[in-house]
């Protein structure tokens, strides 16, 4: 049975999934409606019309099913068997390659194409080719999911691109299924929130910038995006305030948008943020921290002893590279501010003073010197650059009780002019009413060529790529802007990473003093 082996290989890494078995869809008193996505085609025949059929549950437990042949001919009549669950996941559609010819792993990575309602299908020749049908597939899946109140959606390894995701916005209409107590007196469990907890697994696709509708799913609590092609997360991710798990492992991220800071615990609900396998900016000489940790810091029991150890480490360092000691000192200072130091170990959860709960901590460590830009997005002469290239590390300034570490030899002071320019005010107004294309056309008609305006409109177009519109929102004051006037990286410690967050602001005035002043 070579195909069983193949199937297991492909599906060997099941994502974290909610158990859909407890969803109370089967004991409903009336027959579930027949949807194209109900059981497999053969299960909906005349002979078994009365048999209960389960709705398709996305993210069912097919991966703990090791019998790869189960999907061949299982009728799906036995609603309680694992086979049925398997069926529900892969039903309703047309297999790329028909069952009898199929020996090909591709068939499982692109399992389902939607079944147009009124067409006779030649299963052999129905080659999956247009990208349109993937979007339709997502659309149908959302419709079915809404109908059966499914909270879990598995779209792993389908070759999805960004635009295929747009139907997912429909999930914002999802509510939990009402429970039917039947003739019994409703117990406590019948009085519960109708708010769903939506899980969306988009692992192993070809996503790079996602899609606006994704960020309208208010009750999305788990978003899995590992193994895609994401270089930058859209700031709109900040709208997903109910997110408790965000997995962006194995993408191409260099930093995270600052909007994620307020989502993270203890400020927000985001408890688990998985970042492995990205090329995140690192603080210069960070490897020394890791060396230091593993040596003995973790085994030093109390805060006082850790501090003593650290001091001895610092005095042992000559004026050369002391990044490691500095970051740890800063870390311990921050810890001291908010929690019981005796409870803290660098790699563990901490208990915030005064509470019993343990939460993953989040501490500001330092930031890069800010870069300042003019109205048209040109870096001001003499203003430092942010790190860019591959493998580039960031020179971080860390401010501590007893002084500042890492200050550049020459400090570029914040420019004095803090009033928005007439040029930027007008540019903003123009784009509130016109597209960049229309603005360009009108300028062309007027016969005037403005080099700065061209740059301004180019940046608005770039914004479109990331935020799906010409405007971004200032990380400091929240106002919308087209051209960022300053940016810098902030490093926050979140066990066990020093995470770089990119901050961009609408005006020079929006650079806070802690960042702007030496």
């Amino acid at each position, binding site marked *: 049975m070579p195909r069983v082996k193949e199937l297991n290989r492909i599906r060997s890494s099941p994502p974290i999934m909610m158990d859909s078995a407890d969803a109370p869809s089967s004991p409903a008193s009336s027959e579930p409606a027949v949807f194209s996505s109900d059981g497999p085609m053969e299960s909906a025949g005349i002979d078994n019309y009365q048999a209960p059929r389960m709705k398709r549950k996305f993210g069912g437990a097919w991966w703990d099913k090791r019998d790869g042949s189960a999907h061949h001919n299982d009728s799906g009549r036995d609603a309680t068997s694992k086979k049925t669950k398997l069926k529900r996941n892969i039903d309703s559609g047309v297999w790329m390659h028909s069952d009898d010819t199929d020996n090909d792993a591709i068939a499982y990575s692109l399992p389902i194409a939607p079944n147009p309602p009124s067409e006779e299908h030649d299963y052999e020749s129905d080659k999956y080719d247009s990208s349109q049908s993937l979007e339709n597939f997502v659309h149908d899946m959302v419709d079915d999911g809404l109908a059966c109140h499914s909270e879990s959606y598995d779209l792993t390894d389908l070759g999805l691109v960004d635009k295929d995701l747009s139907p997912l916005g429909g999930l914002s209409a999802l509510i939990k299924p009402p429970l039917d107590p039947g003739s019994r007196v409703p117990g406590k469990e019948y009085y519960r929130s109708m708010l769903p907890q939506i899980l969306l697994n988009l692992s192993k696709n070809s996503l790079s910038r996602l899609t606006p509708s994704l960020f309208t799913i208010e009750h999305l609590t788990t978003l899995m995006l590992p193994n895609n092609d994401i270089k930058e997360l859209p700031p709109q991710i900040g709208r997903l305030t109910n997110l408790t798990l965000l997995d962006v492992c194995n993408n191409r991220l260099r930093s995270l948008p600052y909007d994620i800071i307020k989502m993270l615990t203890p400020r927000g609900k985001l408890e688990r943020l998985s970042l492995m396998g990205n090329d995140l900016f690192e603080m210069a000489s960070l490897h020394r921290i890791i060396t230091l940790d593993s040596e003995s810091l973790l085994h030093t029991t109390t805060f006082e002893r850790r501090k003593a150890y650290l001091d001895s480490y610092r005095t042992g360092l000559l004026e050369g590279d002391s990044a490691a000691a500095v970051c740890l000192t800063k870390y311990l200072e921050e810890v001291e501010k908010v929690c019981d130091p005796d409870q803290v170990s660098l790699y563990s959860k901490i208990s915030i003073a005064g509470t019993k709960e343990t939460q993953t901590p989040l501490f500001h460590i330092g930031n890069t010197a800010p870069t300042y830009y003019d109205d048209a997005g040109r870096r001001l002469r003499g203003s430092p650059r942010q790190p860019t290239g591959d493998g580039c590390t960031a020179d971080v300034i860390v401010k501590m009780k007893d002084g500042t570490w890492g200050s550049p030899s020459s400090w570029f002071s914040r420019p004095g002019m803090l009033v928005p320019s*007439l040029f930027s005010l007008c540019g903003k107004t123009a784009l509130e009413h016109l597209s960049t294309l229309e603005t360009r056309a009108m300028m062309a008609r007027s016969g005037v060529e403005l080099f700065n305006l061209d740059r301004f409109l180019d940046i608005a177009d770039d914004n479109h790529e990331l935020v799906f519109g010409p405007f971004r929102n200032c990380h400091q004051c929240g106002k919308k802007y087209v051209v960022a006037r300053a940016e810098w990286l902030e490093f926050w410690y979140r066990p066990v990473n020093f995470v770089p967050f990119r901050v961009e602001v609408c005006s020079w005035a929006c650079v806070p003093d802690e960042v702007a002043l030496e």
Partner: protein
Amino acid sequence: MATINLTEFVTLESSDGFEFKVLRSAACLAGTIKKALDPSYGFREESEGRIKLATINGVTLEKVCEYLYYHQKHAEAKDVPDMEIPPELCLELLIAADYLDI
């Protein structure tokens, strides 16, 4: 008295002949006007305290003057509210702003 008035205000003239008397300090927030009024350049504008802006019409120039005062008023402020720009004027104002360097 008259001499003080002369130096304190400058006159900006639009392409269609409208004149606006503006505080010199406010007018000089525009790089182009400041240059034109700089004695070291020796332009005629300097002696007369009067600048003809042949590419800017009266309606636009009025808004430009409003901006110059807005800028001066908020120069020291930390949190500056955006000035309202009438949409129908924004392209003309863009051209003026680019020319005047404001």
